[in-house]
């Protein structure tokens, strides 16, 4: 590894120290195929949340979306807008829904391949704001269906987010997330 001039990473002088501001809250690695993952009892002590993941479904065709639902709200209280590219063209879409989605968050079982994504949920505990999310995701299904997408999501609710339900679907059906799929929840202080 090249030498590291610590620069602004250096710890403060005597009596002080850098504050850990990005903390792992919970991480799930599936030991068996599972229909949903639910992060519950999320502490309200952070400013923002981030979820990082790698996901694959046992079946389901090619492009599989990863879905996120907050506080058990199954109503049509979410909006999504996205910009995505599939190697052929760049496209946009937007609609109301009953969850926030990552368009290329997962992939149907293809040897070694995994969908991946990062979701930032901003001001998740602020009870004066509807909740906004930014999601970057990508997946490859063999040499066929593939893509990269930037999604913006809105949950039209000012409640603090205390739980996040996650599942995968494609082709109008939900699919079990496969063994080895991993979702990690982080809290960011501010």
């Amino acid at each position, binding site marked *: 590894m090249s030498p590291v001039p610590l620069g602004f990473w250096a710890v403060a002088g005597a009596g002080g120290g850098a504050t850990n501001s990005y903390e792992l809250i919970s991480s799930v690695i599936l030991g068996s195929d599972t229909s949903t993952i639910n992060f519950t009892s999320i502490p309200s002590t952070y400013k923002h949340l981030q979820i990082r993941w790698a996901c694959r479904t046992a079946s389901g065709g090619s492009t599989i979306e990863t879905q996120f639902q907050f506080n058990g709200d199954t109503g049509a209280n979410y909006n999504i807008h996205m910009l995505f590219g599939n*190697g052929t063209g760049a496209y946009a879409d937007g609609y109301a829904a009953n969850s926030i989605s990552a368009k290329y968050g997962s992939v149907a079982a293809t040897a070694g391949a995994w969908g991946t994504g990062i979701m930032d949920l901003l001001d998740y505990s602020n009870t004066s704001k509807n909740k906004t999310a930014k999601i970057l995701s990508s997946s490859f299904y063999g040499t066929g269906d*593939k893509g990269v997408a930037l999604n913006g999501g809105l949950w039209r609710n000012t409640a603090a987010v205390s739980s996040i339900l996650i599942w995968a679907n494609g082709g109008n059906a939900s699919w079990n997330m496969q063994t080895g799929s991993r979702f990690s929840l982080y*809290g960011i202080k501010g």
Partner: protein
Amino acid sequence: MATPTYTPLANITLSSAQSSVNFSSISQAYRDLIVVMNVSLTSGQWPYYRFNNDSSTIYNYVAAYTDGTSRGSNYSANDPAIFIDLNGQITATLETITINISDYSATDKHKSCLHRKNKSDGYVNMTGGRWASTAAITSVNLITTTSWAAGSTFALYGVVA
């Protein structure tokens, strides 16, 4: 109790131009890696990155991009590297690039990465990549056919999960 994470592993500022920058002997103690770059080149080119110095043709990537006027998407399969932006050169203008590498130490997964590139007078780009190898990543190689300019910065972070 929540676990502190997001650890700086290396931080490089080039005192002189060089054709490649390598993060090597990467600790396997993390779940994800993040590379953050603020860079320019000595002359316009299309830089790329590899893992473990692997130049075999097992990299796939798909990108979407716009310069505010035109937009598009491209895809490349079975390449010897992942290009940061096939559509827009990196030039002498500074731009920021962030590369997220997921499950880099997992030996049961091909390696997936997401990168974003932002250039104030050119293209913004998002790319998803896949290195079709289950080997743990021990080095990240950032390569150009010209040179990364003096003053370019490269930082590597490990994220625990």
